[in-house]
Structure formats: structure tokens, C-alpha cells
């Protein structure tokens, strides 16, 4: 073979590798965020499709966290919260023009209940279309009472897809056919989703005709895309990019408190950490304001309790600010008999330097900086902290096999928009949940949860929620460090932008573009 022929063959081979033509961005609205579209399955990447308003859930959530009708126009439950009936909104079409029926909803929810997600954690006896009712109704029967079921049905993993979305043999999602105001125009996994307006949408027609979601891996890249005018909205900005964008005239930065808290997860079964004075000392040694101001650059984000102000009744304003107090922290450690020889840099525990390990992960870059700040702050009370940067999965895996000592995590408290559901999951078993407290139980908290399970009076629910928050702040099974502020860069040409603190929707359908 002549070398020229060889080279030509090689080039042809290389050129033929890309099978598909990626979309060019002629969309009216371009959004960039760090999320990758790894799959079309709502259990895996449903949050992208609900945020882009392609998929919808039976239940919606307003900015205050109140449940609102979604694809279900109303719902009722039995007095014991075991029988639930969801009336399906009439005259709703899927993107393939087939009607939304109770059978389609029951099919979609049944598949969701078999996939990992909050619905699969509930003991369900049956999900069935009620053919006897005058309206289209889906009947869900539970094995045990479960008050927050409606909130679970607001989670993206329970989004409703048309029966044609699923492969017949194994229910693998082959195509995303939803009911939202936008339908998939072109999907280039894992980096791009181009959508166009769905003309037969049941609600108000959106003003923006098409929207393009582009995965931007790095915060600075996303910020530069906005600065350059290539993108209209960029999510998850880092502090440095925020400072840069705030100097741009055509851009504004939205900062919204979201239900996510940076906490130190503790193994409460550890011989030292199971003692409240030890947990209190570690908490007192934290300079939360310094972390919030210096690393997150949001001084008001310093957290004195697990549930932040965005969580309504679960935020207890009467809890005192958590200020650094090294003297008190050292006194508590002294009382525990953890000696600190004058010549030593570390306190001693069983004759050895008092050392703890902390796992954290790089997906949220601020966690690593905060972990090293905590390392320095705990050194001030003679506690040596080794920080291990791992994959996020090391936290629930370490919880399960008992090897975890401490972990710095950014806990999402809103995957189901009802903290009660989260607490039920965390305290269902003495082992706890992968992201919740580890090896900690409290009869007082269990009592409060039992009361909440049987209460429908809003005033009483609020009182119980506040008591639960106080208890968690006193007992510190998780040590809160700071609340999250989500920073989003938005072009000033956009009107109607609103950040959804529950991170369920980008709100594209409510926006319009104003030409300068």
C-alpha cells in the first residue's frame, strides 16, 4: 500500500467517526449549567427534563414550598394517609399528541416505583387507573400511612411520560415524550438539549419559542459565555465569576437561598463522637461567619441550624447564632479527659494524637476549601483532621460499612419538597440514611415525628417542626456549617426570570426576551 493511500484511509476512518450532526444554536434562549444529561430516564436525569419544562409531575411546588396542582388537578387521601386518589387534569396531550390518561399516569408511576428514587422507598400496594370514576383518577394504595406522598410526587423521578417513551420489553426510556410547554427537538447526550415550544400545551403558551441547554463544565466558562452573549442564563456560579459578572452592564446576578445546607456528617457511633460535649466542642470551634464570608462570600450564609430560612416553618428563628467560642470548646474537651500536653500540637486520646478523618468530594469545589478551613479551625482545639477528597458516593458507602468518621457534605433538603419526608427517611431505621445522621437516634425526635404523622393542623405542624429543628440544633447529630445561596447569571434582556429555590424548573415558559 502506498503511504498516501494509507494516510487517506486513516483520515476517512477518522472523519467517519461522528455519526450524528449536533444541533447548531439558533434557539431564542440559551441556558448553561454544569449538569450532564446522562440518560433519558427520569430516575437518572429527570431533573434536566423537568427544569427545561419538557416533563411535568402530578404535583407542583410554589416558591414558598406549598404543593400546587400539576398534572393532577386535585388529590384526596383517606384519614389514615394510606389511600390516595389523584384526579388527572383533563384535556392534556403528550408531545406525540396522545392524550394524558389515568392509565398512562399509572404506567409511568409504576415504572418509577421500581426505579431508585423517593417513590421506591415507600411501601406501595397498588398504583392503578380508577376506571369507575367519572374523571380520570389514579388510585395509589400504601401498605403503611405516609402523609408526604403528594410531596414525593413532585420529585422529578416521578415525572409522567407517554407510554410510547418506554421500550416494550424492559421499560427502558428510549424517547422523552412528556406534557410540558416544551418538547425535545434534539438531544445530544450528555451535553445538549434543544427544545421547542409545544403548541398543544394545556397551560398558557410560552413566549419563548425555543430553548437550548448546554452543559458547561466549568463555572468560569459559563460566566464567560454569559459575558460574551452566547448564553442568556448560567447556573451555579462560583464566587470569582460572580464578582466578574457584577461588573458587566448587560448582566445581573441573582442570589437566592436554596434548601441545601453544608453540614458535617458525623458517625455518632464513634466512641468520641457519640458524646454530646465532643460534638458541641467541634461545633463551637467552627468559625462559620469566616467560612461564609471568606470562602462562600455570602456572610449571611453562616448556619446555626440544619434547616435554613428558605425552609419556612422548619427554620426556627429563636435559635441563637452559632458563634465561635474556643474557650468553651476547650473546656468541654478537657472535661472529656482529652489531655493536651503543653508540648504537643494535638490532644491525646488513648495515648495517641486525637485524629479524625473527614471525607469530602470535588463535585462542589467549595467543599474542599471549607474542609481545609475546618481542618485549621479544629487544630485550634487540638483535634487533628485528615481530609480525604473522594467521590461523593464514598459518603453513603462509608455510612453503610461503618468506616466513615466525619464527612463534609452539601445536603439537598428539597429533593422531596417536604422536610417531613426527609426526616422520615433519615430515621426510618436506626442506621439512618446515607446523607443523614449516622448512628444517632432520639426518642424525643421520634415522638415529634409520630405526632406530625397524625396531625393535619397547620399551626400544630409548625410548632412540632420548630421543636424538631431545635432538638437537632441542640443534639448536633449533623453539624450545620452554612446555608447555600444559588448564584445565577442572567442577561438583562430576559424578563420574568425567577430562580426556583426548589430547583424544579428553569421557568422558561414564564420568561420573555426584550430586545434592547
Amino acid at each position, binding site marked *: *500500500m*502506498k*503511504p*498516501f493511500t*494509507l*494516510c487517506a484511509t*486513516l483520515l476517512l*476512518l*477518522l*472523519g467517519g*467517526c*461522528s*455519526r*450524528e450532526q*449536533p*444541533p*447548531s*444554536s439558533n434557539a431564542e434562549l440559551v441556558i*448553561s449549567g454544569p449538569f*450532564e444529561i*446522562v*440518560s433519558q430516564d427520569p*430516575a*437518572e436525569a429527570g*431533573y434536566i427534563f423537568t427544569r427545561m419544562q419538557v416533563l411535568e409531575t402530578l404535583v407542583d411546588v410554589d416558591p414558598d414550598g406549598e404543593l400546587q396542582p400539576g398534572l393532577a388537578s386535585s388529590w384526596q387521601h383517606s384519614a389514615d394517609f394510606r389511600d390516595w386518589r389523584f384526579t388527572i387534569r383533563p384535556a392534556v396531550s403528550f408531545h406525540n399528541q396522545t392524550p394524558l390518561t389515568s392509565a398512562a399516569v399509572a404506567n409511568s408511576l409504576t415504572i418509577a416505583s421500581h426505579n*431508585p*428514587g423517593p417513590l421506591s*422507598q415507600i411501601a406501595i400496594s397498588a398504583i392503578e387507573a380508577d376506571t369507575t370514576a367519572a374523571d380520570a383518577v389514579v388510585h395509589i394504595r400504601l401498605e403503611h400511612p405516609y402523609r408526604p406522598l403528594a410531596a414525593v410526587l413532585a420529585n422529578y*423521578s416521578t415525572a409522567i411520560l407517554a407510554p410510547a417513551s418506554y421500550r416494550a420489553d424492559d421499560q*427502558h426510556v428510549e424517547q422523552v415524550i412528556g406534557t410540558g410547554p416544551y418538547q425535545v427537538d434534539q438531544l*445530544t*447526550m*450528555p*451535553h*445538549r438539549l434543544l427544545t421547542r415550544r409545544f403548541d398543544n400545551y394545556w397551560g398558557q403558551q410560552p413566549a419563548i419559542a425555543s430553548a437550548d441547554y*448546554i*452543559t*458547561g*463544565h*466549568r463555572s468560569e*466558562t459559563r460566566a*464567560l*459565555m454569559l*459575558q*460574551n*452573549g*452566547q448564553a442568556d442564563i448560567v447556573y451555579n456560579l462560583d464566587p470569582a465569576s460572580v464578582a466578574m459578572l457584577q461588573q458587566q452592564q448587560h448582566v445581573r446576578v441573582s442570589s437566592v437561598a436554596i434548601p441545601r445546607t453544608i453540614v458535617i456528617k458525623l458517625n455518632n457511633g464513634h466512641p468520641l463522637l457519640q458524646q454530646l460535649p465532643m460534638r458541641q466542642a467541634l461545633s463551637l470551634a467552627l468559625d462559620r461567619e469566616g467560612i461564609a464570608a471568606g470562602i462562600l462570600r455570602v456572610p449571611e450564609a453562616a448556619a446555626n441550624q440544619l434547616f435554613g430560612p428558605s425552609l419556612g416553618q422548619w427554620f426556627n428563628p429563636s435559635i441563637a447564632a452559632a458563634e465561635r467560642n474556643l474557650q468553651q470548646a476547650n473546656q468541654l474537651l478537657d472535661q472529656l479527659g482529652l489531655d493536651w500536653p503543653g508540648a504537643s500540637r494535638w490532644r491525646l486520646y488513648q495515648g495517641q494524637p486525637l485524629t479524625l478523618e473527614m471525607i469530602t*468530594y470535588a463535585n462542589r469545589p467549595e467543599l474542599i476549601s471549607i474542609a481545609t478551613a475546618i481542618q485549621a479551625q479544629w487544630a485550634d482545639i487540638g483535634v487533628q483532621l485528615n481530609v480525604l477528597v473522594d*467521590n*461523593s*458516593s*464514598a459518603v*453513603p*458507602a462509608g455510612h*453503610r*460499612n461503618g468506616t466513615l468518621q466525619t464527612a463534609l457534605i452539601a445536603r439537598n433538603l428539597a*429533593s422531596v419538597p417536604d422536610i417531613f419526608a426527609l426526616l422520615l427517611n433519615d430515621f426510618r431505621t436506626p442506621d439512618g*440514611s*446515607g*446523607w443523614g445522621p449516622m448512628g444517632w437516634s432520639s426518642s424525643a425526635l421520634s415522638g415529634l415525628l409520630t405526632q406530625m404523622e397524625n396531625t393535619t393542623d397547620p399551626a400544630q405542624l409548625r410548632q412540632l417542626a420548630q421543636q424538631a429543628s431545635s432538638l437537632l440544633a441542640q443534639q448536633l447529630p449533623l453539624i450545620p456549617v452554612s446555608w447555600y445561596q444559588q448564584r445565577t447569571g442572567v442577561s438583562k434582556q430576559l424578563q420574568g426570570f425567577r430562580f426556583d429555590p426548589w430547583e424544579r424548573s428553569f421557568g422558561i415558559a414564564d420568561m420573555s426576551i426584550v430586545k434592547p
Partner: protein
Amino acid sequence: MKRMLLKRLLQLLLMAWSIGTLTFVLVRSLPGDMAYRIAAERYGDDAITNAAADAVRAELGLQLPAWQHYLNWLGELLQGNLGNSLVSGDPVIDSLQHQLGFTLALVLGGLLVSLLLALPIGLLAGWQRDRLADHVSLLLSTLIRAQPVFSVGLLLIFLLALNIHWLPVAGFGELKQLILPTLTLGISMAAVSSRIIRNSTASVISSPYYQFARIKGLSRWQTFCHHGGRNIAVPVVAYLGIQTVMLIEGVIMIESLFAWPGIGHALSHAIFARDVPMIQGSALLMGVLFVLINTAVDGLCLWLDPRGQAT
């Protein structure tokens, strides 16, 4: 040439088996629970639960002994099947075709830019050895090589996308979105390849056979065409081959900065997720490419300098 191709084919088969086996052993030796890793990549950080990890373990048969997984992979490979991704469930070959196309576009574009820059600069510096052009080229080359490719990319974004608004910052789908990443790659590559060309040129034009050609009356141009071009090209082509091979595995920073969906970024995600079939498939494909590129380079070098046939 035929003998060389046959030898390379045998190398290819051996390489496919050894790379697949090595990546399998290495990934299996990494610490951490595979089921949790895969669940994290599939469902996201917030949704990793014990139930999700257990479902993944049962679905993928992760509780089975490693040797069974290895034999399954080997059996599938013999049938030309790279398996399915443990994360997405899609065939590995589909993902590779999609991602590799983007990476190759980037690498070939970068190579083209690098040649367009490095050839004139390197030849000029070689011709003017130890004079102003050579010193300036050395200074620029050192300055650029001292920068991480990431900061060269950022500088180009500030210049071409933010100041004069000629190009988009990032993304893919249009030809203009390829320009900034290829320029970044090309400039970084040219910083080294221009010096290789310079050295090769300087060495050839100071060689006795080249001087003799000039003495016997050939013009500068005739001498260069008949005695310079090919001799200068041999080390340069060999170096460009190595550089291309290194680029295919090393473009991850460029892909990440410019939100370009290439194989480097996909491979890093696969490693984080312990997506063994995806890692094996990517490594295998890269190995195949390396052999093909090296074969092409060897063929080109033989054509440029047929004396190599004898050895």
C-alpha cells in the same frame, strides 16, 4: 511495507487484549464500592442511596466474581462487541463514535493550526540560527510552553471572544465553535514543534551534503527542495506522530474549558464512575488509534527516507 503492516496488525491484536486486561485489573483494584460509584454517576450526588446502589449491584451482577466479568468481556470482544456502559446502559461503541469524532476534529484542527504556525516559524528560525528570528521564536516558544494550555485558552477567549467578539466562548455544533479550542491546541503544539523544525532545519542546512549541493552550484531554493525538505521532514513527522498520540489522551483540559464533548472528558467521567466497559472501550480505541497513527507515521517516514527499508 507489507511486512511492517503485518507486524503492526499482530501488535494491534496483542495490544487490544493487553489493554483490555490491564484496564480491567486496574479499575477492579481501585478502592471504593463500584455499585455506589455507578449509582452516583447515574442518579447524581443527591440521589445516591443504599437502595440505588443495591439495585445497580443486582442489575449489573456486580456481586459475581471478577473473573466471570473478565471472561464475559473477553467473549464479547471476540465477537466485536464492546458491551454497554454501566452508567447509561447504551452501547459503548455508540458513545465512542460520538465522542471520538469530536476529539478527532479537535486534534486534527489543532494539528493543522500547529503546522501552519510551526512550519514557517521553525524554518525561518532554522535558517537564521542564532540570529534575531531564532531568539524571538525561542522566547515565544518558551513563554507559551511555560503556560498551562488552560491559561492559553483563557487568554484567547478574552482576546477573541470577549474583546473583539469574533468567536463564541464555548459549545459545539457550529464550525466557529471549533476555532478557539483548535487555536489553543495548535498554538500550544506549535510552541514545541516549531523548535523541532528549527533544529532539524539547522542540522540539515549545516550538513556536508547540503553544503556540497550549494557549492556545486544549486540555488538556495533548488538545494532546499532536493536536499532539505525531505531530510528536515523525517524527525518532524515522527515528532508530530508522538504529539498527536499524546493529544488524543491529553485534550481533557481543552474539552473541559470549551465545553467540548470529547473522549478525554468522557473517559475521566467513566473512571470516576468505574464504568469498566466504557473505560476498556475507550482505552482499546485509543490503543488502536495509537497503532494506526504510528503505522501512518512509520509509512510516511519510509516514504520520506526509503533508506529505512533496509533495516
